[in-house]
């Protein structure tokens, strides 16, 4: 063992097929566990839906204004370094504007009359559907 530490080059030479298999299996395990358990509340993307289609998905870490032509007219959505909101909407009640800034994954603002929705996505979905 001491010899191996002193001459690292011989380390590879000492490894047998079984060792490689163990190495491979453990790397796959790490990969699988990472995929399964790595989740994070932090939003990474903004998804805009128009009618029954996904209109576009943007990174949330940017400064940007997006104009979307909805059923009633043009809505403006603002993305500002980690948060997003409806800035302008042609709908009458302006419920979507009143939702304010969305900051965490899973948060959503929906404009039913104009048929546009805004949802922040993270690494994983916090729930499958929403009761409102």
């Amino acid at each position, binding site marked *: 063992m001491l010899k191996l530490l002193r001459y690292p080059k011989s380390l590879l030479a000492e490894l047998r097929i079984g060792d490689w298999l163990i190495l491979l299996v453990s*790397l796959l395990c790490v990969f699988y566990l990472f995929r399964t358990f790595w989740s994070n509340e932090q939003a990474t993307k903004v998804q805009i839906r128009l*009618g029954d289609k996904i209109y576009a998905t943007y990174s949330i870490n940017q400064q940007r204004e997006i104009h979307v032509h909805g*059923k009633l007219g043009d809505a403006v959505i603002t993305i500002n370094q980690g948060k997003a909101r409806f800035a302008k909407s042609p709908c009458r009640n302006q419920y979507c504007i009143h939702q304010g800034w969305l900051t965490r994954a*899973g948060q959503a603002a929906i404009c039913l009359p104009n048929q546009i929705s805004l949802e922040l996505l993270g690494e994983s979905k*916090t729930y499958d559907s*929403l009761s409102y």
Partner: protein
Amino acid sequence: MRKVVTFTLVTLLFILSAFGLQTYLREPLYHSQSYVFGTLVDISIYGESDDRAAQLANRVLQDFQDLHNRLHAWKPTANNQLSELGQLNAAFEQGNKPIKISTDLANILTDATQLSVKSGGLFNPAIGHLIATWGFQRDEFSAVNIDDVKIQTLVSANPRMTDIVIKGDMAYSTNKAVKLDLGGYAKGYALDKAATYLRQQHVKNALINIGGNIIALGQHGDKPWHVGIQHPRMPTAIATIDLPDGWAIGTSGDYQRYFMLNGKRYCHIIDPRSGYPAQHTQAVTVLVPPQPHAGVLSDVASKPIFIEAPENRSKAAQAFGIQDFMVIDHQSTVFVSSAISKKLHWVAPNVKVITLP
């Protein structure tokens, strides 16, 4: 040199398996979201091919659209005719001359009447005239002039579901003040129809959400379907909960259809006793165990709890056999039944929760 080659090969193998695993991990989950007449319909289907899932979801949407056309309380159909419900309402207003209705509508009215009686009249789809007076039979809601005299007259006319008489395929009302508005029933009914249809098509796993009322079939892979409950004052879920096979959940809130007048909120949920919107509640969520009309109950059962005085909420829930419910009152205090308290996962920060005995 040979070792280097082996090492490279093993690394390549690892990368390939990683890609393979990733493809394997991609879920067989289909998700669609559509707007049908101002309501959001959200359908998830697990374990079917995308093509078949899309076909099934479209069929559910079409059925909902048909139902909506027939049961709409105030909109005429495409060729400017009254909806089936509109024609019935017109006949009720004329007097007690019977008109023909479909078997479907007869069943709906019989069922809604039973539920209305069970709720002691707090769930009352016969108060369409009151709802119209408050301006909620429109697509957009703006403040109305509150006409106390008119409201009083409409309340004393006492329109009840039991005023409707159904004989075979004929119906009439013994009270001219009855005007049907199935706004608190139709979405739940559509949910049950959708669930029945998907089960007939041998779909094992699906989650259907029609305007916030959700029913679960099977589960999401190896875990139950997981749903969020809307926070009434923030653009986020207040809590999440597992929805096992056959269970349904529904929420009634004062934040979807309302207007503000002099700093006060007037929502679309009207107390039939006073004729005024309930103002002491922000939201009520009910969880309904598997039963033939779980969808209807998820829609109907939350309304009486929303309207009823705080001390009578548990009684209102019991009238429909509901054990699991959550109430958020006008001061944002959250009350949960002891049954549901064990199932909820809180998401929103600083939620003040009181568990009911």
